[in-house]
């Protein structure tokens, strides 16, 4: 019978074609109703997505399931009758029948909770987790209501510190494997593990090796009980006392989403928020624990004016008046070119925009720059930009970058995952082995200055060429070495881009709002000087007024000698800062700024994603947000920027800055993950110093200076929990080079460059490339920036015994 025969004759009916079946949709029955789940989705996740919460402890959406706690057991019928199934271990299958409310399921849930509570100590009154504790909550919602356990509970010495930041209480631990799985699967630092067996099982670290992972704070957040507690938060508050708002961390340019918890106007902790495009709920320890910086006693709280060599507290009016007078004097003496404004990458977009208007429009100087010479040139932003998700799903990830684990830790986590799951192959070019080296498909070391040749050689390798030919390539590009200019790396980058058309670049800017500041206007005007140019001009006596907007050239600019001469050479200095740093302490006027958490605004991460930051606590003392300071200074100079509140600045950016059109207060409210701002094409290019690196002679070592996770940066140094964590200045040499140089691990040596000599202890380090000397930047101890000549393409050093 064909469908052309008409209607109701015997045996024939019109045939309607069946609707196409989507192979990715699986129909299952959940508590009596049919739901559409996704192929491969775990039962527990499918249920949650459809509004049915199945209790669980060991299951975590961002880690592999282990099915250990047995709390998620429900009756699942796949055709052989209802079976007790751990729903976190089983994916949905067609025609599956799931019952989360059956009597047997309820009995199992009660039973498991009773067993968990059997050995769990009665610590609730003194346990940090109380009030936000999954064990408490599930005992209340699914538990037996009464304990019948009358035996002696398990006892351990408690708590024990397993690292500088985390305490472990083994009695509370329910052995859910979340912390161990996180350390192993997500962070790659398997420093915490189970020991012993059965009822004696406990969490332990290796002997003499604390849990000093850069991500240890995440285990505190994911622990379902109070077994892991964070030292900076212990006993500080109860969850119901906390006011909470979502914000964005600005400790580095990744811009992880966080919530800020505060009580009685004091920030008490940050927690990671699961943002699918950015951080997946994880935070690094530096970003998580540097909240203490905001409430440090060393904050600058009042405007300061230098009189007779001393800084004296004054009112805002007096300070702004004095600053305006300095600027007017400078303009009269040398024109607007005699004024320079550097900084702005540590604030919000609104701060940077107001300052850029003040600098370009009101003062009229072209010498404006937000980079501190320790990062990337602005025109990197003109390249086709990748998002973090695109990088983490690329076929090939090329790294021409610093050690991401030290500088952009959560980006390291995202890329590590891509390599571990065999989604992406990492091709790494580096002057020193990094945290991603062991996950790389190929890791190619290059001596500073030789990256163009090395990249060219590598591109000639047929396996590499074949890999790149597969397409979908993302290059993560950053400043791997502060002791060399960025020129050679940029040239190498362009070789890569030419070899693999369609490649996108993820720029590894470091400072929190580098991209935002550059995008909204903190960059040079026509003929203007960048930071290195400004410092050189100041050293030459050509800068009459230097304005530092949250900038600390003495600590951040690679060439410390030039920074020092520049600061000394500028006739007058105005500093906007949160602390009296080495640079701001020398200023003639210090304008106290609000810190993170004290002001509303937006920030832009390295993808160009704009997200909000919130004011959770009142500004300390008499501090003001940077944009308000800029407005006040403009007023004192006779101009009205026209901002009554921060939202008006946000609106002004949306109107005037190309790419920011959607970034309104409403737009951000509707998009908690932030809004991507397109590639900027109107960025003024910065001239790169030409010149090739000279050949290294056989006595010298090529200097590589990289950043470390913990250094003397303001956020770390003023947070008591983190301040002692930087390892200290040292010179790291490959063990074979140690022998060649004639020294040994731990010995102090003279390190001599063309600029200066610094005495440093030696560290034997097999991750250092032969022929190079590696040093950490801005660590406690002698300042390695003295060795750098920032105009030289590379810097060489010679090691001499004392």
């Amino acid at each position, binding site marked *: 019978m064909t469908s052309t025969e008409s209607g109701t004759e015997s045996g024939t009916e019109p045939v309607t074609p069946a609707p196409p079946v989507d192979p990715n949709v699986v129909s299952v029955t959940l508590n009596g109703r049919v739901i559409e789940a996704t192929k491969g989705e775990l039962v527990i996740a499918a249920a949650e997505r459809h509004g049915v919460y199945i209790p669980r402890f060991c299951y975590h959406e961002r880690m592999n399931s282990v099915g250990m706690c*047995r*709390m998620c057991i429900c009756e699942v019928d796949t055709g052989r009758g209802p079976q007790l199934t751990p729903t976190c271990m089983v994916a949905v299958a067609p025609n599956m029948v799931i019952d989360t409310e059956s009597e047997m399921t309820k009995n199992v849930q009660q039973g498991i909770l009773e067993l968990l509570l059997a050995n769990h100590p009665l610590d609730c009154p003194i346990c940090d987790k109380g009030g936000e504790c999954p064990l408490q909550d599930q005992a209340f919602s699914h538990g037996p209501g009464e304990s*019948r356990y009358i035996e002696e509970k398990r006892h351990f010495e408690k708590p024990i510190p397993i690292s500088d930041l985390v305490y472990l209480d083994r009695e509370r631990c329910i052995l859910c494997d979340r912390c161990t799985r996180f350390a192993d699967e997500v962070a790659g630092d398997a420093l915490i593990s189970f020991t012993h067996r059965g009822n004696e099982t406990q969490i332990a670290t290796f002997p003499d090796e604390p849990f000093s992972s850069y991500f240890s704070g995440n285990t505190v957040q994911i622990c379902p009980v109070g077994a892991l507690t964070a030292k900076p938060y212990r006993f500080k508050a109860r969850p119901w006392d906390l006011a909470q708002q979502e914000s964005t961390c600005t400790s580095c340019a990744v811009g992880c989403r966080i919530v800020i918890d505060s009580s009685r106007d004091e920030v008490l902790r940050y927690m990671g928020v699961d943002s699918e495009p950015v951080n997946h709920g994880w935070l690094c320890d530096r970003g998580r624990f540097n909240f203490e910086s905001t409430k440090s006693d060393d904050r600058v709280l009042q405007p300061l004016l230098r009189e007779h060599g001393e800084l004296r507290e004054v009112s805002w009016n007096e300070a702004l008046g004095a600053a305006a007078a300095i600027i007017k004097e400078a303009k009269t003496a040398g024109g607007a070119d005699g004024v320079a404004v550097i900084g702005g990458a540590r604030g919000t977009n609104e701060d940077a925009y107001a300052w850029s208007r003040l600098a370009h429009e009101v003062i009229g100087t072209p010498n404006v720059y937000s980079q501190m010479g320790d990062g990337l040139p602005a025109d990197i932003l003109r390249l086709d930009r990748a998002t973090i998700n695109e990088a983490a799903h690329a076929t090939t990830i090329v790294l021409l970058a610093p050690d991401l684990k030290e500088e952009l830790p959560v980006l390291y986590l995202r890329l590590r995952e891509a390599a571990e799951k065999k989604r992406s192959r990492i091709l790494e070019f580096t002057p020193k082995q990094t945290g991603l080296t062991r996950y790389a498909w190929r890791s190619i070391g290059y001596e500073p200055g030789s990256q163009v040749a090395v990249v060219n050689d590598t591109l000639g390798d047929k396996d590499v060429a074949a890999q790149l030919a597969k397409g979908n390539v993302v290059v993560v590009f950053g400043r791997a070495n502060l002791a060399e200019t960025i020129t050679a790396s940029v040239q190498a980058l362009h070789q890569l881009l030419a070899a693999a058309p369609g490649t996108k670049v993820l720029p590894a800017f470091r400072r929190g709002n580098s991209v935002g500041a550059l995008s909204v206007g903190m960059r040079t005007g026509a003929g203007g000087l960048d930071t290195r140019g400004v410092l050189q001009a100041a050293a030459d006596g050509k800068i009459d007024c230097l304005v530092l907007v949250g900038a600390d050239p003495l600590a951040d600019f690679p060439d410390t000698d030039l920074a020092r001469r520049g600061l000394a050479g500028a006739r007058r200095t105005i500093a906007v800062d949160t602390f009296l740093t080495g640079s701001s302490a020398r200023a003639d006027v210090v304008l106290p700024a609000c810190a993170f958490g004290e002001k509303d605004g937006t920030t832009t991460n390295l993808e160009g994603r704009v997200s909000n930051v919130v004011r959770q606590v009142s500004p300390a003392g008499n501090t003001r947000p940077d944009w308000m300071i800029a407005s006040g200074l403009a007023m004192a100079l006779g101009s009205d920027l026209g901002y009554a509140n921060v939202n008006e600045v946000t609106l002004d950016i949306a109107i005037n800055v190309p790419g920011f059109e959607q970034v309104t207060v409403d737009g951000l409210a509707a998009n908690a993950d932030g809004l991507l701002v397109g590639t900027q094409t109107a960025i003024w290019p910065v001239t790169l110093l030409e010149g090739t690196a000279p050949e290294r002679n056989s006595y010298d070592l090529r200097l590589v200076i990289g950043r470390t996770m913990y250094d003397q940066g303001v956020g770390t140094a003023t947070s008591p929990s983190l301040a002692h964590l930087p390892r200290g200045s040292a010179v790291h040499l490959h063990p074979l080079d140690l022998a060649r140089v004639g020294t040994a691990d731990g010995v102090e040596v003279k390190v001599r460059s063309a600029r200066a000599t610094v005495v440093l202890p030696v560290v034997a380090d097999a991750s250092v490339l032969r022929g190079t000397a590696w040093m950490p930047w801005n660590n406690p101890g002698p300042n390695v920036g003295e060795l750098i000549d920032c105009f030289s393409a590379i810097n060489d050093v010679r090691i001499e015994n004392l």
Partner: protein
Amino acid sequence: MPRLKPPYFPAAIGLYGKPTIVNNVETLANLPWLLTHSAADYTAIGTATSPGTRMVAVSGHVKRPGVFEIVNGTTTFRDLLYGDEFCQGIRNGNELKAFVPGGGSAPWFLPDQLDLPFEAKLVGAAGSMLGSGAVIVMDETTDIPRAALTLTRFYAHESCGKCVPCREGATWLERIMERLADGHGTETDLEQLFEIGQTICPGPFPHAASGRLGIEAAPFPFKMTTICYVGPSAYTSVHSAVTLFRSEFEAKIVKRKLIPVSVGAIDDQH
């Protein structure tokens, strides 16, 4: 902490993705015979559901403990325990109290089940299993609570610690059994044992029939909330012992005298 087994047949893809198989000596011992004879010869011995012979290790209160080769489906437990060519009866002429037919994790049998042959389906229906083929014989002198404690303690100690019911439940069972065996048991302990057992193995749990107690057999299989069988094994001996020999446990429970409290006297003071 053991790893999760990959979801493939271990002999094809097992540890580190390589074929993995562990065989015991009994299995390997059968191979030369099978290779020199034929499958037909092998299946001619025994029954359709339990072909061939089996090595059973008998321990406990028999005159002649040891390892014996029996014919599947034909040899009965009575043959094994009392037969001249096998164990030759209970030691010292004692009466049989109970025996474990298939290793420490099998539910117990009573003299009622002696006439069962070594046949998987029949033994399963009768409330136990052939298991590892280790038969443990207990005579009238056995302290049943202590015997059950020994088995439960073993499995609780062997627990890997991964899943909650076994790690916590088995140890809790052990603690209660310790108190019971030592004579410090309480009124609620026996019910508590069954409650814990319900968390490890919800639903009816296999046990043998008993003419003396007038109870029917509860057949295999059981449900479990654990990842593997160690948890239920810790419970098995407890369940069998308390179900079949409850009076021995009750005798060990301390009956405490209750001190009456008069509420009325306090009210009168107002």
